[in-house]
């Protein structure tokens, strides 16, 4: 067995803070450490007051701190035998935190239910690691990354297993249901889960990105699962009637988007999404107890066609400013176009919302605001991308038909929401809507055993 060593090394111009047979800290680990510590710290301080008076207070805090430490180990691990236990233990701790009060049967079930997915993920990961070890004889991730022959069938098997593991962790369809059924958890646990644990899948794919990149068809499969989940998660989110399940479905959708970015070969963009979404969602969860004001607007209010055309134009400008600020090319023949497209849709929606009525004064202010929004978005993405740029993981793919279909679906669904009021009505259409509604409603329900059907079965 190799003796652990620690030193500062530079390979391929990539600064690595620490490389040993046990730990490996590069830019990716650095970003993850920052995210986990920040979120972990805020949630711990929050919980100190929020959980006060709870019978399991000390147990809870101990588990919470244990979980955060475990996550830190996981993102810095290099040795397979550190990464794997850290991965498993953090999920085990999460499941225990989710249960919180064992006497509450629905909650105990939800924990066990999540654990099923985690176990599957863990086993896949274990086998994948074993395969990598078996093929290369190396016990560390970094060494394996260099030694593995990518055109090997076994490598493909290992990568696919790792993909399943990542999908379980990030609640990607069809492994999403544990997350939708996880709301029996105390609020801070949900926050940590949605800001930290679910990102594990993305982290895994990014860590092993060099192995995935040569397998373009595997990347396309990843993309399709991602986009599918992004769409269906968004639909469920819009239909939910309670705040926390809405947030959970939203996470499913966002994770889908993040995984899709991985599938496009845009790993740094995925890191950016993972970080910013983590903070965004943790904040929403922690503040979910105060969310009693009705939603005041939706994107569907009808507008005249002139503001739509102007908005499309502003959307183009916004997306251009986004590309300028983020340092990505505005027009390219590769998958970066996908990101620009998302920025374009977002800026168009932004402009449309401000531009209630078409007037010159309104239009000028909308122009500036939309431009600002595009810039902000670009800067935000660039902040993280710059940090992980030494990893050289920006590997945009050539656009294929699946990418086009994926993007079209994202666009169509958005347009459909906008045009909802202008769509033709009629019995048949109403009927179809009804069928879809019921199907989607049923599909987005938590597992029935994780529901407290008789409130007297609830325990605190």
């Amino acid at each position, binding site marked *: 067995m190799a003796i652990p060593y620690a030193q500062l090394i530079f390979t391929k111009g990539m600064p690595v803070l620490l490389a040993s047979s046990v730990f490996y800290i590069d830019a990716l680990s650095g970003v993850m450490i920052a995210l986990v510590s*920040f979120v972990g710290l805020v949630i711990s301080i*929050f*919980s100190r007051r929020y959980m*006060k*008076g*709870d019978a399991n207070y000390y147990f809870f805090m101990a588990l919470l701190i244990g979980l955060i430490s475990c996550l830190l180990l996981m993102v810095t691990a290099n040795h397979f035998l550190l990464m794997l236990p850290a991965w498993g233990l953090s999920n085990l701790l999460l499941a225990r935190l989710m249960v919180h009060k064992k006497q509450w049967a*629905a909650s105990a079930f*939800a924990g066990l239910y999540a654990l099923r997915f985690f176990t599957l993920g863990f086993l896949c990961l274990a086998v994948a690691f074993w395969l990598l070890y078996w093929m290369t004889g190396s016990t560390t991730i970094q060494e394996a990354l260099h030694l593995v022959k990518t055109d090997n069938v076994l490598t493909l098997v290992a990568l696919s297993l790792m993909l399943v593991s990542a999908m379980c962790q990030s609640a990607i369809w069809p492994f999403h249901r544990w997350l*939708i*059924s996880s*709301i*029996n*958890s105390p*609020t801070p646990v949900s926050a940590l889960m949605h800001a930290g644990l679910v990102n594990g899948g993305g982290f895994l794919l990014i860590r092993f990105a060099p192995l995935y990149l040569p397998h373009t068809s595997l990347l396309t499969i990843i993309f399709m699962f991602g986009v599918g989940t992004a769409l269906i998660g*968004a639909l469920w989110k819009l239909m939910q*009637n*309670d*705040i*926390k399940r*809405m947030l959970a479905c939203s996470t499913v959708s966002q994770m889908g*988007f993040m995984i899709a970015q991985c599938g496009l070969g845009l790993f740094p963009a995925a890191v950016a*999404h993972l970080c*910013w979404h983590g*903070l965004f969602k*943790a*904040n929403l969860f*922690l*503040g979910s*107890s*105060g969310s*009693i*004001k*009705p*939603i*005041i607007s*939706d994107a569907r209010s009808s507008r005249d066609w002139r503001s739509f055309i102007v908005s499309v134009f502003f959307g183009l400008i916004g997306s251009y400013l986004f590309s300028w600020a983020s340092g990505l090319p505005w027009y390219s023949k590769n998958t970066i176009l996908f990101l620009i497209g998302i920025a374009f*849709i*977002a800026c168009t*929606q*932004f402009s449309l*919302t*401000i531009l209630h009525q078409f007037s010159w004064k309104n239009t000028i202010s909308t122009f500036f605001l939309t431009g600002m929004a595009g810039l902000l*978005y670009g800067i*935000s993405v660039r*902040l993280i991308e710059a940090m992980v740029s030494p990893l050289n993981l920006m590997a945009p793919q050539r656009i294929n038909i699946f990418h086009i279909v994926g993007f079209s679906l994202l666009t169509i*669904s958005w347009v*459909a929401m*906008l045009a909802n009021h202008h769509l033709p009505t009629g019995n048949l259409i*109403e009927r179809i809507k*009804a069928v879809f509604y*019921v*199907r989607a409603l049923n599909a987005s329900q938590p597992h029935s055993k994780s*529901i*407290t*059907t*008789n*409130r007297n*079965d*609830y325990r*605190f």
Partner: protein
Amino acid sequence: MTNHLNTKSLILQAWEKIAPCWPLKNIIAVNPLQGFETMPFEEAMNHGIAYFEQSNFPVEMQRINTESIKWFQAFFDEGQATITMPYRERGLYQSWRELARHDSQLHQKNRVNKNFLKNLSICSESVIETCLVNLQIQPKEKEQFLTLLLTSLPGWASFAKYKADWETNDNRLSTLKTDYLAVRIIITYLLWPNARTLLAWHETIKTEKISQDRITAMQSLELHYQQDILGKLQHSMEDRKEKKPKIQFAFCIDVRSEPVRSKIENKGCYETFGVAGFFCIPIRIKNTTSTECYDSCPVLLKSNHTIVESFHARHIRIVQGVKKLYQALKYTFTTSFALAETLGLLSGISMLFRTILPTKTTALKNKFINFSDTESPSTLSINDAVTIDTQCLYAKNLLAMMGLTENFSEIIVLCGHKSSTENNAYGSSLDCGACGGRSGDKNARIMATILNKPLVREYLTKEGIVIPDTTIFLAALHDTTTNTLSLCESINHDIQHLFDEATRNLSAQNSISKSADWAETRPEWGLARNASFIVAPRALTKDANLEGRSFLNSYDWEKDGDGSILESILLGPMVVGQWINSQYLFSLLNTIAYGSGSKITQNITGKIGIMQGNASDLMTGLPVQSLLLTDKAAYHQALRLSSIIMAPRHRIAVIIKTHPTLGNLVSNAWIHLICIDPEDNQRYRMMRNLDWQKIELGNV
């Protein structure tokens, strides 16, 4: 036809057992056993155990409830979902009927079930009849069966009851009670054809009774409390009219007013009064910015006047616009990915500062985002809504109710109250119950304006209430979380100075940080530990340390010759006091069946109510954090309300006996009624047979 009538009345009978549950935007305290109030307390408790506290339902109920919850969540949503339940505007049964046929969880792909759902009658009542027959429920069991369908999912039923009985401005809701039962019974019929068993099951658990020990323990606590408080109230009452007070304050009768009143009085020559916090003007407020319209008066009253509240500040429109923009990007497809990425950093910063510097962050937030602003308060359109004659009547009525008809100070402050908490679904339960679970500042402002009008003063003078020209009425807001008082509108420097002198340093050190903290689950104790309702002049209670456990309603029996003021106090505020008291009482007695469990796992559904975790029956009542210090140690005490009235006992007896609602409360022991008779200076207890029994102090 007779059959139809019969079913209708059965349905209504079944609903009688259910207490309404108000939505989160204005939580009103109710007795969860309201449906059993015509029974003696102990008996009602037993019924409560049988109907609401059972945990071992037949297993089939699980699936029935799962499906019911799913559909009720969708139908009763008031602003969470963007894609809402189709056909919802047609009412519960009609919309559900259109959708249920597609629900594979209900028909389970079984052809017979599919046909049954497809051919459901358009009339919810006849569907109930059909299902009752199909389920082989005997005619005399029908009412009980329907009742069990409600009480086996009591939370959602409570909310439906609220919608049907208390939100009467919506036509869709006229058939809600029938619709609700129709949905329940169809789901039951499909998933458990043998649901008859439910009746037998209920018979087996019905025998369970509340332990006599618990009742005895409660009684001894109550006696002990009464002994103590009557002892405290024995002394005072001597010094009546001294010199003219510098400021007179009118507070709400809320128990949280009492400690503040004592503190102010101890500062110097100040006089305080207790009166229902809507200041006797039943209004409805229409907010032009949020377009919300709500009643600002006790729910037992009907608001007659719609006051339009409009704001001037430009920044409110901007804040509203930003919010709209945010939601437009969040609640649609695709753009939410960009939104999360753009706002991530901001979210992180906000989350950090709200957690480590809550007080400063919230102060900043209130300054820029919230609408509270004393420099440019909102405009309230009083004259459009209330005629000057009516204004005069309200003014006279208020002063009479307060017992303030002479000896006016130069400054009289009407103090509405509100709470200020962060990240708290139960915020409105801490607001003014007399204002329908809202902030009381508007009522205070309106009454102050009315009382300052020369025309009103003229009228009052004619009625024998002479207010000096130098007297000015002001409106203030008492923040019960931070225990601070502030004037609602800016006023000249001298008066502000006098006001500050009286109201400085009322709050405890940590209350402000608790109020601002989004991680705080116990921002304030609200009305916890409430125990008594005292109707008497302030002189009686002034020197007693009441520990913030008493509702204080000012009342001077000598100024109320015909007893009409006492009558309205007992019918209004005291009944509300009893609602509040029973909400706390039962929420504590069973923190799950009547309370709503711990806040840490709560989930807000439809912006209207609380579920526990993934999905559950609606949790009505108060969370444990409003009742308990820790999961194991109680803060509130389980006591029934002791109503202590200083008035001749024959006058009280007449009122109690005339009104069956009041008679019921006393004879069924929902409250204790104690009289301090000023004529012979003795204390009497009204027994269950409504006779008086003399209380020997030290031997209550």
